[in-house]
């Protein structure tokens, strides 16, 4: 496989007395969807914030296209080409789709907003993602949850990112809308972007992810190729089913008749 575009190794992060991440590794290749899995408190969000530059890591190395980089501010991550879409989407309900897509990066000509150019670019972008929305001039409040998610993702693509991080993109969506978003994730992958997908939904992970990286209590608890790993094994890694008194004891001693216990 090609060289990883983003590679984290030995990432540790401490909040006071809590070791949120210890020696975590993660790599993403271009054109690959990596699912980041883990129970609540496993450190997924902390890792996302490390990558996005919101909470820099205490120790560890981040390599971008093979070269070591420092990501200390959200701006650093954006400059490298890492786009993060948080769960709350951060859309302005009162503005239309075009305005939301270009928010903070409006195109202007002669000091005035170049609505024509922005609408044309927006149409092109959405067409390239095969996203069909009737009118780009409706306020985003009128869109469905899935369409809003898609607009949020599309907005992050205007900066030409190479890695897109999605925080639970399907958490609040219905069946059809989830399918729309998953389609979009596949299209991003086909365009050669690295995608990091944080999700609790194993069905989504199985549908689009190439690899599943599992975190448990701030440590790496497995890195699976989704295709050839049974569902149970991934769940076991997430819940730590392999790490409980029964199996620990089973590993230590062989008790005759333990099936009856």
């Amino acid at each position, binding site marked *: 496989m090609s060289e990883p575009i983003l590679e984290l190794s030995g990432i540790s992060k401490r909040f006071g007395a809590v070791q949120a991440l210890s020696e975590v590794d993660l790599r993403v290749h271009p054109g690959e969807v990596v699912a980041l899995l883990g129970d609540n408190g496993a450190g997924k969000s902390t890792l996302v914030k490390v990558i996005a530059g919101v909470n820099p890591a205490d120790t560890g190395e981040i390599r971008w296209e093979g070269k070591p980089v420092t990501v200390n501010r959200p701006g650093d991550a954006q400059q490298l080409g890492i786009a993060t879409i948080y769960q*709350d989407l*951060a859309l*302005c*309900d009162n503005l239309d789709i075009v305005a939301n897509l270009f928010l903070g990066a409006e195109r202007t000509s002669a000091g005035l907003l170049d609505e*024509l150019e922005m609408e044309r670019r927006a149409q092109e972008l959405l*067409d390239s993602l095969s996203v069909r929305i*009737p009118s780009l001039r409706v306020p985003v*409040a009128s869109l469905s949850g899935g369409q809003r998610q898609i607009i949020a993702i599309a907005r992050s693509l205007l900066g030409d990112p190479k890695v897109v991080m999605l925080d639970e993109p399907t958490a609040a969506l219905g069946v059809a809308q989830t399918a729309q978003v998953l389609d979009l994730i596949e299209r991003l992958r086909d365009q050669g972007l690295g995608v990091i997908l944080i999700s609790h939904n194993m069905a989504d992970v199985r549908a689009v992810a190439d690899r599943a990286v599992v975190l448990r209590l701030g440590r790496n608890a497995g890195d699976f190729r989704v295709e050839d790993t049974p569902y149970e094994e991934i769940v076991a890694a997430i819940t730590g089913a392999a790490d409980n008194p029964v199996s620990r004891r089973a590993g230590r001693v062989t008790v005759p008749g333990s099936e009856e216990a």
Partner: protein
Amino acid sequence: MAQQTPVAKQEVGARDPRLIVDAASPSGLVSGALRRLRGGELGPVPVIIGLVIICVVFQSLNSNFLSPQNLSNLTLQIVSTGLMSCGVIMVLLLGEIDLSVGSVSGVAGAVLAVLAVNQGINEIAAITLAVLSGTLIGVLHGTVFAKVGVPAFVVTLAGLIGWQGVQLYLLGSDGTINVPYDGVIASLTQTYFVPWIGWLLAVGAVGVYFASTFLGERRRAAAGLPAKSVLEVAVRTVLLAIPVFGAVIVLNLWKGIPLAFLIFLGFVVVFDLMLRKTRYGRMVFAVGGNAEAARRAGINVDLIRISVFALASTLAAVGGILAASRGFAVTQSSGAGDVLMLAIAAAVIGGTSLFGGRGSAYSALLGGLVLGAITSGLYLLQMDSSVRYMITAVVLLIAVVLDAVSRRSRKAHARG
């Protein structure tokens, strides 16, 4: 796969079948307009209906109401609070409120009078300094609100009381400073333009509107984007031309177009263009819609907030100067009383939402006209303030109810 590609491309360029397309005919325009009204996009329609009802009622009670003299006075009468409304609109768009505009207009008037009359400074310099004092006050309000995090309501409530105190202090023991009748300050509201200038401005404004809209839509069509038909552009131009030319005819029957009203209109037009056509305006709407989203999009939310409060107080100061010009004096009651409520009410009656993120600068003109017409009509009927207050309150309440209902209707029709 290779065979499917051209088909898919063709689909992309085509219009989405779910999009309702109004026929480019008169009936299509009407049905489209009706659909938008039912969806809660009332726009200026309720205000215009209200204005027509007010005019009909007062005209039937007193035939002088629609006389050119009274209407000319009306345009002058709404200028001062209208300018304050314009600033209030900016603050309302952020989803905040500025309770200090009345007091700030009073302080600016006092600064103007003290400098120009008591200190004998050049009147133009005094006007400039009075406007700047408003800007400074606004920066102060905005900074305390945005940087310290005190709710705007409280900051400007403190301003409401505090700046009135400063005004009383500046005016000193006399409490009134008269402005000379023949200076620059007085001429602001005493100047009228000869008829041909009015016609020139009206033809120019309508012409520029038609040309810019027509060319804009042509460019949209050329770029393959949905565009308004020539018919719709023409209808809109005619709808704009009727009130514009009507106003010029009526005002020319009396003394001509008042300079002060033109100043007000100028501010309204400039603010409207600023809100709709510039990055700054887009940022104001974004902060009003979702401040956190705006922050993450890289917008300096604090700076936008401070600048909006600065603009609001600046406009309040301009309003105070025009009030001083019209009254030939600055008194202890300048900017006090119902001025603040009228300024906020005009903005809301004109259609700017109290909930933030929705509105337009034209609310100041429309709302100002409604309140001005009521005031003027009741004066003609020799009713006193008690009736005026009650009627103004009812009109304000109707406007707020319409705002809340249309917001709900927009939600139900999923239009934000």
